[in-house]
């Protein structure tokens, strides 16, 4: 067995380790078709990271798409009950420069059903454990869409202004937030809270007091309370990467609706994991339940592992 393992590339060993982790937690492998009806993606465009999709006409005349996303298919095929699945799939999206399509290998995990806070902490812990398996020098950054969402709802009803302020907060552009707030008559505590939200990051203990002092609404307060409970539960799990909080992270408005998180590895320029709560997608598909999951972008790890097995990371 050792001989067999020794010939595996680091990325292959990582996938085995992750499968082992997810199976031990009761998650089952989900296999899916490479194609999906294009109309399905068209109806749910707001839930796609990139709206561009490769389409082709099947032999029976149906317009199909090469899968640009896995979560949508899992949500579509959910038939009730408690679903715990993980997957390793290729998806097809435009490359970063937007010049051509790219095949992207993803490994991910989804939990669908009537989710309790314990279920939520289980998935976030699995994300942090996954990051620890990816690299010994990695980080999971956690936030809650309701925090910035709650602040923005308290200061304006204008959807366009909300979107502009949200974009500046996620860029950590505190001066830009202050400028735009002033131009739109938002002042005092409200303006200060928005500016502060752009800079709020650290361990939960480090951000708790500052975040608590700028909650402008019940929604923001609820988000903070949920994060506190989550932090308390997650911190009891072993084998985690560094877990930190950054409340400027609030995700795409249409997609995520609760806890949200991203994974980073020192030395890699882009996030390698992203996930969160996406009940709104299930709701749009007429399924009244909760959903939470994450995807690990295996192609982003190529720089970490090098060209072959010579660059093995012992954490794998």
């Amino acid at each position: 067995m050792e001989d067999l393992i020794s010939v595996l590339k680091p990325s292959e060993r990582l996938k085995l380790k992750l499968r082992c982790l997810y199976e031990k937690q009761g998650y089952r492998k989900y296999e899916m078709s490479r194609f999906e009806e294009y109309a399905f993606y068209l109806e749910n465009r707001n839930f796609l990271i990139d709206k561009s999709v490769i389409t082709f006409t099947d032999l029976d005349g149906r317009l199909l798409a090469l899968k640009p996303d896995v979560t949508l298919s899992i949500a579509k095929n959910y038939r009730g009950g408690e679903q715990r699945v993980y997957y390793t799939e290729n998806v097809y999206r435009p490359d970063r420069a937007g010049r051509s399509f790219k095949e992207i290998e993803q490994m991910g995990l989804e939990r669908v059903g009537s989710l309790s806070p314990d279920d939520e902490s289980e998935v976030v812990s699995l994300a942090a454990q996954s990051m620890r398996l990816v690299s010994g020098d990695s980080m999971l950054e956690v936030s809650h869409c309701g925090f910035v969402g709650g602040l923005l709802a308290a200061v304006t009803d204008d959807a366009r202004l909300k979107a502009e302020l949200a974009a500046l907060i996620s860029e950590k552009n505190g001066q830009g937030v202050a400028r735009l707030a002033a131009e739109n008559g938002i002042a005092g505590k409200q303006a200060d809270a928005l500016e502060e939200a752009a800079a709020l990051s650290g361990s939960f203990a480090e951000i708790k007091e500052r975040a608590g002092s700028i909650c402008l609404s019940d929604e923001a307060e609820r988000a903070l309370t949920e994060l506190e409970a989550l932090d308390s539960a997650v911190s009891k799990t072993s084998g985690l990467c560094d877990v930190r909080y950054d409340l400027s992270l609030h995700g795409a408005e249409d997609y995520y609706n609760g806890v949200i998180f991203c994974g980073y590895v020192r030395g890699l320029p882009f996030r390698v994991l992203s996930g969160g709560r996406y009940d709104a997608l299930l709701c749009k598909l007429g399924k009244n339940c909760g959903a939470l999951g994450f995807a690990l972008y295996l192609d982003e790890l190529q720089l970490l592992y090098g060209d072959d097995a010579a660059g093995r990371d012992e954490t794998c």
Partner: protein
Amino acid sequence: MLTVALPKGRLGDKVYARLEAAGYICRDMTDESRKLVFENEAAGVRYLLVKPTDVCVYVERGAADVGIAGKDVICETEAKVYELLDLGIGKCRMAVAAKRGFTDNPGRTLRVATKFVNIANKHYSDLGRNIDIIPLHGSIELAPIVGLSDVIVDIVESGSTLRENDLVVIEEFMQISARFIANVSSYKFKEAEITGMVSALKEVEK
């Protein structure tokens, strides 16, 4: 150690002077050499001299932890970076200019010559105006003079180039200045160093 992408040229000189005053000294930088990488381990800083339009690429893709780029470059490249400080230097405006006496006819497509294709597209998309973008790499002012375009979208600093070519600004829509940006992942792992540099730069500004 922080790797800083600095724009070559006038803006870079001004920015380096600000960084030097903030304590991030690298004496070799002032040499008349063709070197592109300068390092001062004691000050914990390594500078990369890059083309101003490439700063965002170096930072977004992690070759540099932080950098200084014009707001025009950040918007045009649509780089996903943190924008941590407006340095308030290299101030200018993004503007629409046309030949003196030009009147826009909303009944037909507006021909727009520009180096800033994404910025121009977004501006006119926000206005709901149908346009035909003509991408150029230089001498933008020539386009309306020879009938290649109706208007240009370009950076205006003093306005003297426009005046000399009998063009006038018909709209200004973006304030531009040099911004201190950071790679998102670098920020997670080097937050104290990066925020320390931001604070030092703010202090110098005072």
